[in-house]
């Protein structure tokens, strides 16, 4: 049993960072930025959920994935080429962006929904706080930097240099006061989400203003 998938043809595969790739196909549905799709290489093969990483008006849609050596899906996905057929569900999910102020907090491929939100025009009053080990692991940093400018913060746990906060994302969150009345969107690993959420709550942010999406 599984999600119902439709065939789509791969347009291109882009290297998005160390061990990270984005696969694109022609947009075959409408969606809200932040939604996910189930994807498989085969009509009835292993399925995984991925956030769409592109704007909801773009002609092409794509998902960002980390290559998991030995994994059931991503080694095959990383090997697809233009014209290859993959299988994708309709979009779904309620981790969606809106106009108005919001803080976005992400690590790893958890940036994907925020790339989609940005590419869908949700730029104003957004602050992105991004955690990674070293500078090459900030997936999508060119897009975030160019659109959010000084509202884009990179927290590098094992790197230093111009434009980087030297320390973990959670250290950055702990070192500041946070507005209590705006929504906080958290997306990434379970550990990051739980730690970041605890810090925000300890700094007075109501848990009702924190929306999270854990990457499996």
């Amino acid at each position, binding site marked *: *049993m*599984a*999600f119902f998938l439709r065939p789509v043809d791969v347009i291109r595969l882009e290297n998005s960072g160390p061990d990270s790739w984005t696969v694109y196909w022609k947009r075959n549905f409408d969606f809200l930025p932040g939604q*996910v799709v189930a994807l498989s290489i085969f009509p009835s093969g292993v*399925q995984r*959920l991925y956030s769409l990483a592109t704007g909801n008006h773009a002609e092409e849609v794509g998902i960002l994935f980390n290559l998991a050596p030995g994994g059931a899906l991503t080694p095959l996905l990383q090997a697809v080429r233009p014209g290859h057929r993959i299988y994708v569900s309709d979009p*779904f*999910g*309620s*981790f969606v962006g809106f106009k108005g102020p919001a803080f976005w907090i992400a*690590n*790893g491929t958890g940036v994907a929904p925020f790339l989609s939100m940005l590419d869908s025009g949700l730029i104003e009053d957004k602050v992105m706080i991004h*955690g*990674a*080990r070293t500078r090459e*692991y900030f997936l999508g940093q060119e897009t975030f930097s160019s659109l959010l400018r000084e509202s884009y913060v990179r*927290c590098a*746990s*094992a790197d230093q240099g111009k434009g980087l906060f030297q320390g*973990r*994302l*959670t250290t950055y969150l702990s070192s500041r006061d946070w507005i209590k009345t705006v929504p906080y969107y958290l997306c*990434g*690993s*379970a*550990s*990051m*989400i*739980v730690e970041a*959420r*605890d810090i925000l*709550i*300890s700094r007075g942010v*109501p*848990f*009702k203003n*924190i*929306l*999270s*999406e*854990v990457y*499996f």
Partner: protein
Amino acid sequence: MNPKTVLFGKTLEELKKLAEELGQKSFVGTQIAKGLYQRRVSSFSEMTDLSLPLRQRLEAEYELGLTLPNKVDASIDGTKKYLFPAAGKFIEAAYIPDTDRKTLCLSSQVGCKMGCLFCMTAKQGFQANLSVNEILNQVRSLPEGNELTNVVYMGMGEPLDNLENTLKSLEILTADWGMGFGVQRVTVSSIGLMPALETFFSRTRVRFALSLHNPFEDERAQLLPVQNVHGLAQIIGFLKSIQDTDARRLSIEYIAFAGVNDTPRHVKELVRLLHGLKIRVNLIRFHPIPGTPLIGSDESTLVRMRDALSERGIPTTIRRSRGQDIYAACGLLSTKALLQNSNQQDF
């Protein structure tokens, strides 16, 4: 030297295949299964229904794979919390004796990915899926294992996020050739991952408990992040769609939080949501965890909720807390303190 292959945790099909690979008839696999799961042997030499050469070969090339707990904490109410080594780390399992039943609450993962706001296990993040062997070892190597009447998959981890190993463990746990627990004695609790839930219902007959905790989708997402992807309407819709052909008992787990999910508005929505579903509700007292913004509902509110739901045709009980003094109660299991610093992730 290659590590020996572990046999405890293999299904009958796998054991029959193994027997054939060893040049035996496939029924030898059934004999091995009965030794492992019914006679509960602690060495291959006790499998006296096998030939001596086969026993010697098993001894040389295989191992049972049983692991005793390292530590036990005992509660004043009789509950015991056992610490088992698993997946290179540690897991906890709670043994809960009562007058008429002896229940084991076992773990299916080291840590958990679900990130639920009210759960201590969530605070350690996710470290590993448990193997079938590691799931069932909690039953087999429990000192009180012979006394167990019930097994619940409600410890650390989300069972449906470790689907194949959970399903295999359930097969072994409930099979006639296996550990022989009646399907009505085994309950799997889940926050409801789709489509894994469909697979679970198609391949098992054990009882199911849905961790619901709020009937409003947007409010549930504040407590359980997974709601953003696996929506309640879809889960409840699925449960309603199968109840005509699937008679197993369904229940709802509902931790009551003061002012968050315990108001008349929530009761009304819960009744609406569950309408047409033959299901019971377990109201659970919240056991506070460090840094939580949540407060448990008071006793009078719990009673009011129970009565309101019962009056509307939904059988509802308030679950008695057990093992709270040893952090074995619902939502308190965690082995975070035992993790090495190297597990800290880069973010």
